[in-house]
């Protein structure tokens, strides 16, 4: 593994981590709202939130690009505020965040929906507010689904390609993640160097999934042995 391989790996891990952490509060909030909300329009909102799962990543990337470009609606405001997003690491975070958001929300929502409403009712009747009940009852019961969603979101962020290359370009050392570097090295005929990165991604992916599996198993045994 060369120094540049390592720096690509670190950049990718950093960006994927920032992306996942930044969507975590919003994703859990959205999952919670969707799990409680029974009103009209729920299906439409759910569908809208899931769109990045279904749309080609390049389509999502193009929409983001047009919004953020200097003449775009958001881009003009950001430009005036002196904030640069496009073609910086922040663009990678943004693209991967949007692409991985539904992967966090869906399992988290399913887990929150499975929390027995009677438990929530008991919590409320003991005088706790909705937020307290959420943190003391729902979250501890649904954590496994939320963790699964978080891992899925992180994995997507780790490997995202299409939206990223459109809004962040492929700038070595700044926006070039593992997925982009593999593509770039293949394009210029450096297949062996590209394969080194493939090996790295396999190691990281294995480690991430394995850790989560172990973590879930240990916690579930722990939970069962509790009185």
């Amino acid at each position, binding site marked *: 593994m060369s120094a540049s391989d390592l720096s690509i790996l670190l950049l990718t891990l950093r960006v994927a981590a920032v992306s996942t952490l930044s969507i975590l509060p919003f994703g859990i909030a959205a999952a919670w709202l969707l799990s409680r909300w029974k009103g009209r329009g729920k299906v439409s909102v759910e569908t809208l939130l899931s769109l990045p799962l279904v749309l080609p990543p390049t389509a999502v990337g193009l929409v983001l690009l047009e919004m953020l470009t200097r003449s775009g609606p958001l*881009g003009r405001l950001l430009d005036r505020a002196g904030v*640069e997003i496009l073609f910086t690491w922040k663009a990678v975070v943004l693209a991967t965040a949007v692409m991985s958001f539904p992967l966090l929300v869906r399992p988290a929502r399913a887990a929150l929906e499975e929390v027995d409403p009677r438990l929530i009712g008991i919590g409320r009747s003991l005088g706790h507010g909705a937020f307290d009940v959420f943190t003391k009852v729902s979250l501890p019961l649904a954590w496994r689904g939320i963790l699964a969603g978080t891992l899925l979101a992180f994995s997507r962020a780790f490997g995202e390609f299409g939206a990223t290359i459109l809004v962040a370009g492929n700038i070595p050392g700044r926006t070039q993640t593992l997925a982009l570097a593999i593509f770039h090295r293949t394009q210029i005929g450096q297949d062996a160097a590209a394969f080194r990165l493939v090996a790295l991604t396999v190691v990281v992916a294995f480690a991430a999934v394995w850790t989560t599996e172990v973590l879930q198993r240990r916690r579930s045994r722990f939970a069962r042995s509790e009185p």
Partner: protein
Amino acid sequence: MRTRILAALLLLAMAAPGRSEEILVFAAASLTESLQEIGRSFERGTGNRVRFAFGASSDLARQIRAGAPADVFFSADTAHMDELERVGRIRREDRREFLGNSLVVIVPAGSSLRIREPRDLLALGRIVLADPEAVPAGVYAKKWLQAEGLWDGLRSRVVPTLDVRAALAAVETEAAPAGIVYKTDARMSKRVRMIYEAAGKADIVYSVARVSDSRKRAAADFVRLVESREAAGVFTRYGFVVRAAS
């Protein structure tokens, strides 16, 4: 030669005291090795740092137009500079048309294919070039083939790539039986053979400019170094034609 580069850099270093800067240079893929070499001398001589993003000029220009934080742009043509000038991302007075190049037809080193005249290209099953709709190397190739009256016959057999180096790689790995790239690209590779040179048949002009809102002094310094006689020596060694100062 080396001492002269060092002397020039020393002058630059003295002219620009203060803290070191990092500049981001967007450059045509065909300039990869030559600019990296010049960039290394620049870093050694000035203490500044140069980061390169190489790719298709068309792609890089699009990114700069959208607001990419590049400090200097090298395009393999003038059309994309015109475009950036129109939208105010570069200034006319900062533009230099500094290099020329030519197109060659290449085949894998082990291939026995020969062509005597451009018409013989029609016998090929596939030919790889940088995207002829956007990327300069492909646009030049298309123009040349059109001038030869061959484009309509060949267009369905063209395999477009993202940039010229991807076309080179496709021939190197024998994924394609032939390709059209710059002469400088073909010279870089031991795994391809030039079988035809379209010399003087396409007017290939490279241009460079600093991006107008880059406030970094190192950006202008880097452009100045690229225009120097010392850099001209590097470009010539890689096979580029250095154009007289415009």
